[in-house]
């Protein structure tokens, strides 16, 4: 199978902190990969390096075989790499529908349209239709997370990088988001890289996980495999899985 997203020996330093130390990983087309690790392990830094928020000090990022490490964020997004943020980011003064429309227009496919149909179906999918004309800043945390996810799915991408998509939201909405992820994965053979602490969801979604600790990749493998590794137990899972 083809490699969809590849990080090669990424390094990033902030003052005295080596936030990313020679990080490499490869995610195959259609794979849903989990990234786990303790706080401060460099997971969000990895997301930011891959999606162009930070410029890596050294190393490379490849999307479908092409290097994107020198690209601006918006170019990376246009190439089909879509991300979400740990702290949900939305356009607060825009309404729910306007948020979806902006997301659609930003990566509008060449065969275009104004996105009306897509917005309609996304409102149904996220069950946000009653709130279509509500400003995003007035939504609850769960609704915000749903909307952010919905925006990401407005134009199908080839690869999604999700930073803690399940933190702090109620189980019902968690399930909706999981449904959306699986749906997109099935229909478009889309690739996912999901950073999360929620082991039960990771176990459900991700056949394979990458463990990060202290800025480095500590292990790759299925959750059960990595859970048996002594250094992972010592550094992280031993506590988390209890």
């Amino acid at each position, binding site marked *: 199978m083809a490699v969809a997203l590849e990080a090669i020996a990424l390094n990033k330093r902030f003052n005295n902190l080596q936030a990313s130390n020679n990080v490499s990983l490869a995610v195959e087309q259609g794979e849903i990969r989990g990234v786990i690790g303790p706080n401060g392990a460099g997971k969000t830094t990895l997301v*930011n390096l891959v999606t162009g928020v930070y410029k890596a000090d050294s190393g490379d990022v490849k999307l479908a075989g092409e290097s994107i490490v020198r690209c601006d964020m918006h170019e990376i997004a246009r190439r089909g790499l879509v991300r979400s943020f740990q702290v949900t980011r939305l356009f607060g003064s825009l309404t729910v529908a306007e948020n979806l429309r902006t997301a659609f227009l930003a990566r509008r496919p060449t065969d275009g349209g104004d996105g009306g149909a897509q917005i309609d179906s996304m409102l149904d999918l996220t069950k946000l239709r009653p709130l279509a004309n509500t400003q995003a800043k007035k939504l609850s945390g769960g609704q915000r997370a749903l909307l952010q996810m919905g925006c990401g799915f407005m134009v199908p991408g080839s690869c999604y990088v999700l930073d803690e998509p399940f933190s702090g939201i109620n189980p019902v909405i968690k399930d909706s988001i999981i449904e959306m992820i699986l749906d997109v994965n099935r229909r478009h053979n889309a690739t996912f890289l999901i950073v999360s602490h929620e082991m039960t969801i990771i176990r459900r979604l991700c056949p394979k996980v990458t463990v990060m600790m202290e800025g480095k990749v500590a292990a790759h493998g299925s959750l059960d495999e990595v859970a048996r590794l002594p250094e992972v137990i010592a550094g992280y899972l031993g506590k988390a899985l209890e």
Partner: protein
Amino acid sequence: MFSTELVAQTAISGVMIGVLYALMALGITFIYSIMRMINWAMGEFYMIGSYLQFMLVAWVLGPDLWWLAILISTAGVFLLGLVVQWGLIKPIFKKPPEMRDDYATVVTLALLLFLRSIATGLAGPNQFTPGSTLPIMMIGPMPMAGARVAAFVFALAALGIFWAVLRYTWYGLALRAASQSRVGVQTAGIDVLSVDRVAFGIGVALAGLAGALLAPVFLVFPTNGMITTVKGFEIVVIGGLGSIPGALIAGILLGLIESFGAAFIDSAYQNIYGFLLVLAILVLRPTGLFGERGREA
């Protein structure tokens, strides 16, 4: 024309004036670092400081007690700052954050127009001077008005005290913490709005101090704060918002560039040199020479 004496004199004059400009910049940068807002009416507090100084020296204390007048004027502006913050600025911070900048700007712009017109209406458009009994002094090869030397010394002292208070006192710690994170300070049990009030008071008091110090040098009239504010903003950009050494060094730099530009290039464009420096700095180092670079995301 390019005599060593002239160069030395120009340099001394540039440094002296630069330190005084820095005082103004410090007020702007301090208010910004705590409250994340720009006070466009800064020059009007300078103006009020200079009027207070004039009234105290001319009518109450006499020219020999000018130093006492300076302390009282500064304190007066500080109190006025507290009132203005309470009446006009504080309500802004009860509004959603995305609107604050714009409204703070409009309110302080309106305050600028208001104070300036009030001064013209009450005191008339004429200039005044509190006068000075200090003799002319020689600074190296450069004769200097005593009042200007005194202002320079006072300004340096004020910068030093300000730095020490910020560095070594509990209140300074609270202020620094507030400049790092307003929310953080609140969770630590400090009333951030009262920190604001004092910060605003101190910030405008620095402008008032500059006004009182410079009253005998640059005279007292309704728009006398304008040019010092302009310099203050230039320095803030050059030095970097929120940086005290930045304000001092950028102040001196600006003073020198204007002095030398006026003396050796073309004096008609004296005020352009500073702006060009500002634009150059912003292009090369968008956060100023000593400004922190923010981490995004």
